[in-house]
């Protein structure tokens, strides 16, 4: 592992502790730095502090849900460059929201390891 090359930072905004564990297991052995946030509000703070390269976002969360988070991210914080992948059990995400906030892709839970890795790779490549 080359320490000098800066690891890509992935912010995972997810209220479920189990899923944080699963994300860690799924991304084990990959050269990504994982930042965890428990809700949208925390997520926004992490974005400001850590400047992640990619955000994996859950939709249903306490305090601030995914929809509010991404809208604030895109239109309030003007963070338009960070790719966002939505990961949710609900596959019915309003298409208007996806288009307006430039969501890269939607992952329906459950997803396989390869699917997640593939999506992350594609998102980071731009």
């Amino acid at each position, binding site marked *: 592992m080359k320490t000098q090359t800066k690891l890509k930072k992935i912010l995972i905004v997810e209220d479920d502790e189990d899923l944080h564990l*699963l994300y860690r*297991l*799924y991304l084990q052995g990959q050269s990504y730095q994982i930042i965890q946030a428990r809700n949208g509000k925390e997520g926004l703070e992490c974005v400001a502090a850590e400047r992640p390269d990619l955000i994996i976002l859950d939709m249903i969360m306490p305090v601030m849900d995914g929809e509010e988070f991404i809208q604030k991210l895109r239109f309030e914080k003007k963070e338009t460059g960070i790719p966002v992948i939505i990961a949710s059990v*609900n596959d019915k995400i309003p298409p208007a929201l996806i288009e307006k906030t430039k969501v890269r892709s939607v992952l329906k*839970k*459950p*997803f396989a390891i390869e699917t997640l890795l593939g999506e992350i790779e594609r998102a980071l490549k731009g």
Partner: protein
Amino acid sequence: MNGYRISLRYKLALPVSVFVFLMLILLTHTTIRVVRDFVVEAFQGQISIQVEDFTKAIRSSFLFRNYTYLQFHLDAMASRPEVYGVEVVDREGLPILQAPIFRKLPILKDPVSGTRALFPVQSLLSILFQPERISSEEGRGEFPDLFVAASPIFREGKELGNVQIFYTAHKVHDQIRRIYRKRIFFSFLGAMAIAFLTSAVTWLAIRPLFRLRITVLDILKGRMGVRAKIHSGDEIEDLAEAFNEMLNRLEHSMRNHQLRTEALEESEERYRALVENASDVIWLLSPAGQIIFLNQAFEGLRREDLLKEGLPLFLSFHTDESILHFNTALNQVKKEKVPVDHVATVFHHPQSRRQIYYSTNLTPVFTHGRELKAIQAVSRDVTELKRIEVMKERLIRDVAHELKTPVAKFQMTLNWLDQEFQKEKAGERYKELVGLMKRNADLLMSMIAEVMNLSRLEAGTEPLARKPCDLGQILSQVCEDMDPLIREKKLSLEKRLDGQSIPFEGDAAMLYRLFTNLVVNALKFTPQGRIVVEAQKNKREVRIRVSDTGVGLEKGDLEKVFDRFYQKSAATPGMGIGLALAREIAVLHGGRIWAESEGPGKGSRFIVEFPL
């Protein structure tokens, strides 16, 4: 009927009376003639004797020309009341003496020679009460009605003269009149008696007829039990019997009629009570849209207004979608003459604007000639049901949603484990176990998804996204996707789609699920053999058939398999909700679905039919 009427008894009695009366007159008349002849003859006999006696008395005076004495005799004779005059004439018929001397007497002439009469001249009585006068031919009208009797005076066989006595006919007439005044009175009395008698006899004969008339009047007054009791032993009795028989039959049929009417009224009453007390709105629509009958008003509307203004008023409180839906159903009933059930409409309460959900069943009502007479509508307020349904749907969705996350995490964990075991050799031992867990977790997830879908479809909260699509293409996709599973079970799948495209307006994702569920179901119950997917299309409809060589179905199960979680016995696998969902999707697309089977062990067929 004419203005006048004559009783039958007079009609019958009058001709008889007239006849009797005429006979009586004729008889009287004849008798009068005979009697008159008698009287006249007797009178004539009397006066001829008188004249002969008188002649004998005056003979000597005449012969000895003692005229004073002769005149005395003549005056004596002439003074008699019945004598008009007396005359003595010579052989030539010239008068010698006469009494009374001032009175002119008729000159008698021989009707043949015209000189003088030798025989008594009879009075010419032709009419009873107006005696004509007799007179010499030239002196007609000069004298009263007279009889004349003459007697010659002979001496030694030589006629010297003639004595003529003129009698007035008064006596004769008086006598005859006297006799007949009495007779006529009595004969008139007799005629009256006979007329009365005839009338009475006639009355007796036709009396039953009057009794019959009274019976008829009684019946007309409403006393149906009355019968004519007539024993006259003639045609009237026959008539009465026939009449009574007719009455019996009439009464019988009236009783029947009354019983039937009562039964009808009773049943009408029963059904009216049922309809009036029904909690549903029951109404009758004319084909033109008028409301003919309405048992109660829709909430917030007045019954009279609805009856007056008809369907448009009712529809004006609906959403455009509801109006379209209702009118489409109504037109279908009118055109195809078939009932349409469960027409769902949303009614806005006119005052409170509260939403009321109605489910209406429309049934055509026909005349005897199969013409559409009216449309019967039964509208049920299903607002409460709707509310419960929405609640239930929300509950199921929430529960399912809550289940989804843990199951998803479970699947993801298994996914990671699977990967990990592939890396390590020791993992071989658990590979099968992980596979088992993965399969069941997948099954659990798909079931949750199905439950959510079905609940959503049944509640109707999410309408179908109907777009033009191709049924043939969807079926090909299903076959392709199912192929690995079929091969896994070592079955064969046969496609008979003829490569044709079947354009259809529908929700492609839902239709995909419908056909997938049918194939999955076939797969589940077919241990060996094949599954055939085929589509047939004509101008009006398309039929998709999924048949298998599996365990088949019993007749009683053909319907039940579409129920949720139907399971024939604990030993057999349950149906889950795949077929229930399939039916829901088919129905939402305006189609229908049913199962066919020749029996257990003989395979089964599931057929979906969509109108085009």
